[in-house]
C-alpha cells in the first residue's frame, strides 16, 4: 500500500480562524475528491474485513476516528520536539498506545462487538491512513488544523465503510443494524458475507465515484 504523501500543507498562518475556508477543505476534501480509501487506496484491509455488519463497522469507524484525531493532535503538539531520526517510532508508539486504549475500552463496554472485530481493532495500528496523515500532515501543522485533518480523514474512512457495510449486511444477511429486512426466508448471500463481496462493493463505489468526478488514471 503506498503512503501517497500529499503535498504538505504550508504552515497555517497565525490567528487563522478555525473554520476558515482552507480549514473547511481539510474536512471536505477527504470525504470525496481525496478520499483515503477510494482515491488514495489506503486502509483497504480493514475495509474488507470489518464490514460484514453495520454495527461493528460503526464501532470500527469511531475507533479509527478517535485514534486518528488523537494521534494527529498529539503528534502535531510534539512536532517541534520529536527528533527526526525516531519520529516514525514515536508516531507508532503513540498510535499503538491509543489503539490499545480503544481495544481495552471496547472489551470493557462493548464486549460483543470487540469479539466480532477481534484482531482488526489492534490492526488499526497498521492502518496506512493514520501513519500517512501523521507523516504528511500532523508533523507540519498546528494542532487545530491537525485536529480537522484527523476528523476529515476519519470521516472519509467512515463515509466509505458505512455504505459498504450497508450493502453487505443488507444483501449478505438481509438485515440492517441486526433488524431483519427481507424476512426470515431470505437465504443470505455468501459472497457478500465474505471479503470478496466487500472488494466488489468497494470496487463499484470507486467506479461510481470516479465516473461522477471524471477521474482518469494518470499515464
Amino acid at each position, binding site marked *: 500500500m503506498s503512503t501517497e504523501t500529499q503535498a504538505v500543507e504550508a504552515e497555517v498562518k497565525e490567528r487563522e480562524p478555525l473554520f476558515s475556508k482552507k480549514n473547511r477543505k481539510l474536512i471536505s476534501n477527504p470525504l470525496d475528491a481525496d478520499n483515503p480509501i477510494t482515491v488514495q487506496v489506503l486502509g483497504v484491509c480493514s475495509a474488507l474485513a470489518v464490514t*460484514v455488519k453495520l454495527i461493528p463497522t460503526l464501532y470500527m469507524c469511531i475507533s479509527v476516528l478517535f485514534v486518528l484525531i488523537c494521534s494527529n493532535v498529539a503528534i502535531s503538539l510534539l512536532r517541534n*520536539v*520529536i*527528533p*527526526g*531520526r*525516531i519520529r516514525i*517510532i*514515536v508516531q507508532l*508508539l*503513540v498510535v*499503538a*498506545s491509543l489503539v*490499545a*486504549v480503544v481495544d*481495552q*475500552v471496547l*472489551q*470493557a*463496554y462493548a*464486549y460483543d462487538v470487540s469479539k466480532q472485530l477481534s484482531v482488526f481493532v489492534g490492526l488499526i495500528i497498521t492502518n496506512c491512513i493514520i501513519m500517512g496523515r501523521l507523516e504528511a500532515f500532523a508533523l507540519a501543522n498546528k494542532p487545530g488544523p491537525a485536529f480537522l485533518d484527523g476528523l476529515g480523514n476519519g470521516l472519509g474512512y467512515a463515509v466509505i465503510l458505512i455504505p459498504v457495510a450497508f450493502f453487505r449486511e443488507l444483501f449478505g444477511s438481509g438485515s440492517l443494524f441486526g433488524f431483519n429486512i427481507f424476512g426470515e426466508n431470505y437465504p*443470505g448471500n*455468501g459472497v457478500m*458475507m*465474505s471479503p470478496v463481496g466487500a472488494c466488489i462493493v468497494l470496487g463499484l463505489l470507486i467506479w461510481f465515484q470516479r465516473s461522477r468526478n471524471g477521474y482518469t488514471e494518470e499515464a
Partner: protein
Amino acid sequence: MSKLNKNSSGYIFGFALLVILVCGVLLSVVSGALAEKQYEERELERKKFILKAALGDEIAAVEKTEIAVMYEQRVKESVVNSKGETVDGIAANAVKLKNEYKKLEKNGSVKAGQSINLPVYMVMNADGSEVEYYVVPTYGFGLWDNIWGYVALQKDLNTINGVVLDHKGETPGLGARITEEKVQNRYRSGKTIFEGDKLVSVTMKKGEGNDYSSDPHAVDGMSGATLTADGVNAMMSSYMNLYLSFINAKKS
C-alpha cells in the same frame, strides 16, 4: 534558554524514554481501570451461555444486569476430572478450556500422565432445592479452527436440554451457522445421549431438511457444512465420554 540539540543521542534517548513512560503510564492506568469491567463482561458471557444452554428462551428475556444475579442464585459450580472425582482447589471459571483441550489425544481420550479439569455447572430449580440441569462445557475443532460450546443435560443425565455453540473461524453461511438459534434449537427436542447403558452421544446428520424426530440420537444437519457438523459431533462425543464417569457416579 539555549536551544536543545535535537539530534544528540542524549536528547533522543531522553525523548524516547519520556514518550515510553507517558504511554506506559497511560496504558497501565486504562488497563487497570477497565480490568474489572472486562472480567465482568467475559464472565457475563460465560454465565449467559451456561444459563442459555439450560434454560433456553427463558434467558433471552432476562436483562443483561439480571444475568449475574440469576447465575448467583441458581448455578452451583464444581470441577471434576475424567474419572469423575471432584477436583478441589480450582474454581470452575478458572479452568481454561482451551488449555485443557490440549491434554486430549486425537481420539478424544486423555493423554497419558495428564489429568484434565472438567467444570460442571449445576443449575438448580427455582427454589434452589435440587439440581435441575447439569451444564458441561465442550471444546473441539471444526473445519478451520476451534469450536466450543455448552451442553445442558436434564437431571436424568441423559436427555439433552439444550446446547450453545460458538466458533472461531467457520465458513460464514455454512459452518458458522452453528451459532444460529435455529440450528442450536435442533438439540432441544428431547435428544438423549444414552442407548440403554451405552453412551452414543447425539449426531448431527449430513444433509438438511430431514425429520429425525423418531431418532433420539440424531439431529438435522447443515447443508454444505458436513465437516463442521462432524467437528461438533466429535466434540460432543469426546466430551460426553470424558464426563461419563461423572455422569455414572451421579446416576447411581
